[in-house]
């Protein structure tokens, strides 16, 4: 096949269409017994016209066809340890290290050091475990997000969500995301893995719970002092941060709000809080505070205030606040200078918000992908 040399220069030239010659059709063209008519042809996927090309494709897939280049030589490096604080795993190849880093140090909860396989699961975890307002809101509306990315469903409880995962997404029945607190991981680093790989014949009950937990205690294998991390896990940060300033539970409210700011519920939270604040300035202290205030105010006062609160469900309404340390003077200060505290509220939220964002940036910086 001899192509005219001008063709190559035409290809290299600029775009353009030829000025068509005049079209004059004679009705006698294609008249019987002749039958030609110019037409575009479509072929469906199973048409035999495609056979040769399809076979070529499948030869390529099975790799009989391409004699591909040699696998790139993996650079050998002297053994080195993981640089993340507290982790002293040893590696002899960069690929192994990269995988280790991405699995164990990439999507890590900054509160409890758990590692997650994806950002989505990390976000869900933070929301459900470390956002104090989550519990309040989950009583009012469905808050448990489906774990499947792209599914927008939400549920009232984590059990409902699990049912949905099994029923609609055909997840295995022993796939578990959140665990009851009592079994939040064994105390020794190696045990978590053993539990997670437990074969059913050994201990059906236990492995049913642990084996399939995607968000299981990945971090538990880090040879970091485990006991310490456990105690600081879950929701300790706010307490340490601002305990001296006002009181534990107050700060927790603030932090919950500020944390909410990084989550989709922020607007909702803000609207609700602002409404509450406008209605009765005292209530910005939140039901949490009121629950502490009850003994101080006495039964009458409780009767006066509490019923109007949407959230009063007994003293420890969130089921997590064991032993509140509020003291009466906190309460009094807050009551007497409600306006000042309103300003303080703004200050706090921006302070904490700033800190949270710094923290996130810090994590993000640490987690920048390692280039080969």
């Amino acid at each position, binding site marked *: *096949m001899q*192509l005219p040399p*001008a*063709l*190559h220069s*035409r*290809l290299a*030239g600029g*775009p*353009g*269409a030829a000025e068509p*010659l005049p*079209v*004059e059709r004679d009705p006698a*063209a294609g008249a*019987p017994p*002749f039958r*030609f008519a*110019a*037409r*575009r*042809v*479509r*072929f*469906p996927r199973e048409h035999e*016209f*495609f056979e*040769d090309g399809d*076979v*070529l*494709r499948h030869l390529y*897939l099975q*790799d*009989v066809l391409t004699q*591909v*280049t*040699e*696998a790139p030589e993996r650079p050998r490096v002297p053994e080195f340890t993981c640089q993340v604080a507290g982790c002293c795993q040893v590696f002899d190849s960069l*690929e192994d290290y990269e*995988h*280790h880093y*991405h*699995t164990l140090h990439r*999507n890590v909860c900054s509160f409890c050091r758990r590692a997650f*396989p*994806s*950002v*989505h699961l990390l976000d869900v975890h933070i929301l459900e475990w470390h956002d104090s307002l989550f519990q309040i809101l989950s009583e009012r509306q469905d808050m448990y997000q489906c774990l499947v990315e*792209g599914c927008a469903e939400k549920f009232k409880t984590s059990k409902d969500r699990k049912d949905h995962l099994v029923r*609609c997404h*055909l997840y295995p029945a022993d796939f578990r995301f959140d665990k009851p607190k009592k079994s939040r991981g064994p105390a020794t680093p190696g045990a978590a*893995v*053993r539990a997670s790989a437990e*074969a*059913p*014949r050994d201990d059906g009950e236990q*492995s049913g719970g642990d084996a*399939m937990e*995607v968000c*299981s205690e990945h971090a538990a294998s880090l040879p970091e002092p485990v006991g310490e991390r456990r105690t600081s896990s879950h929701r300790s940060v706010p307490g340490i941060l601002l305990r001296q300033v006002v009181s534990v539970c107050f700060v927790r409210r603030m932090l919950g709000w500020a944390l909410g700011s990084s989550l989709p519920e922020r607007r909702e939270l803000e609207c609700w809080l602002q409404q509450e604040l406008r209605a009765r300035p005292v209530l910005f202290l939140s039901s949490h505070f009121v629950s502490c205030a009850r003994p101080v105010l006495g039964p009458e006062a409780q009767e006066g205030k509490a019923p109007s609160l949407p959230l009063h469900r007994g003293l420890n309404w969130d089921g997590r606040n064991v032993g509140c340390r509020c003291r009466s003077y906190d309460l009094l200060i807050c009551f007497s200078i409600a306006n000042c505290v309103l300003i303080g509220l703004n200050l706090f939220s921006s302070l904490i918000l700033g800190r949270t964002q710094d923290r996130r940036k810090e994590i993000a910086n640490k987690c920048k992908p390692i280039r080969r």
Partner: protein
Amino acid sequence: MWSGRQGRLRPVGCVVEELRCRRREREAALRKARREQQLISKRLLRDDASEEAEGGCVAMILGETEIQHFLRLAQQGTEEKERERALVSLRRGLQHPETQQTFIWLEGSMRTLVGLLTSNQALLQLEAARCLHELSHSEQSAVAEACLPATSYLLTYLSGHSSDFIELCLYTLGNLIVESEAVRRQLLPQGIVPALAACIQSPHLTVLEALGYALSQLLQVKEAPEMIIPSVLGSTLPEHILRLLQPGPKLNLGVAVEFAWCLHYIICSQVDNTLLISHGGLSTLGLLLLDMAGAVQRTEDTGLELLACPVLRCLSNLLTEAAMEVVGGQNQLEDERVVAALFILLQFFLQKQPSLLPEGLWFLNNLTANSPSFCTSLLSMDLIEPLLQLLPVSNVVSILVLTVLCNVAEKGPAYCQRLWPGPLLSCLIGTLAFPDIEVVGQSLELLQLLFLYQPEAAKDFLQQSGLQVLERHQEEAQLQDRVHALQQTALHQ
């Protein structure tokens, strides 16, 4: 950009003759499978290089007790290296079909493997995924289906960050997808389409190629037009596919091949092709064609035919979209350089892969059928002669070449006048002598158009003793009417 595939799959180390023989066997098997509509293939990702370096021990068939031993060691070993080694031994064993069978019937084995896959030891996790990959590549469907409990985790890990691991998960999923409809019925609700749509934004080429593989496997299954393609078109995947096919320094051949096939499966199912045209599909593919033609001139043996085939199919089928004018498709493909590029590719096919010539000529037919502009380009760029040189290749090619010539001739006298000079007549007399009825029939159609629009042609035909050639077909039932009509025209002009 157009360098050969950065293969992670090593060539099988054997001599050329043996290789050819194996290829012929494979090809025959594939043709048979295609006719039975059971054409499926799987890919095996195996890094043999590092294994050979480690001593190159031959994989052994493992018995039940050995499998149990390795699993227990991987699960409960005291040292991480030891546990990893146990899994490596297990994986090597799983390269054998016998071991695979033993493994899947062993109680609790898959459960343990999935447990290791979700464990918090990164390297164990990787090794467990490799074991699953070996199983997914099995030809026995029972083995691949035993991997079902792992799919939700494989999908979850696609949103991770470890590129090697994601690549492995994608190839494993791609292998499982084609196994049976039961697998797909599980993968779709588990969210494979959104998971792939999120993963396609990855910057890693190896991940993208693996993703293209998995997606093409998903799109080529039988029930895809009803069950899968609508949701793929509803996601962000089409835009990303087209982005990855845009020519430029970022284009990678291996990645582009996979996604071009994805696009072909979508387009030939004809679910909503106007959507692809409105995303600029025609212009992207047209530019890609130009780029490929440029690359063919510069380099040798790049495996470009693997990409050219699906791209040509996509373009040809998109051109048949009735609603193309409505969504502005016509303007996307009116550059005459496309014709130049196509001829350069035809020349390349002729040398490298003649079986692809019909697909190129099909595209040329769809280009010229309704477009006086492209017909004019064909004439003005002197491409009739090269086209005629393809006539002897095969019957299918001859018919397509003659059809393209008819497309030009039927546009009227101005076109026939340009078409006539040169070797056309002698070539036509040659095709009239073909034994194939369809080739002869198509030649008769072309002659009729030429006689009609270019009366000189009939005179030349008589002079070159064309009538004698025509007489040969007088007895042929399908041809005799047309032969007779042509004889009349030629004699009375």
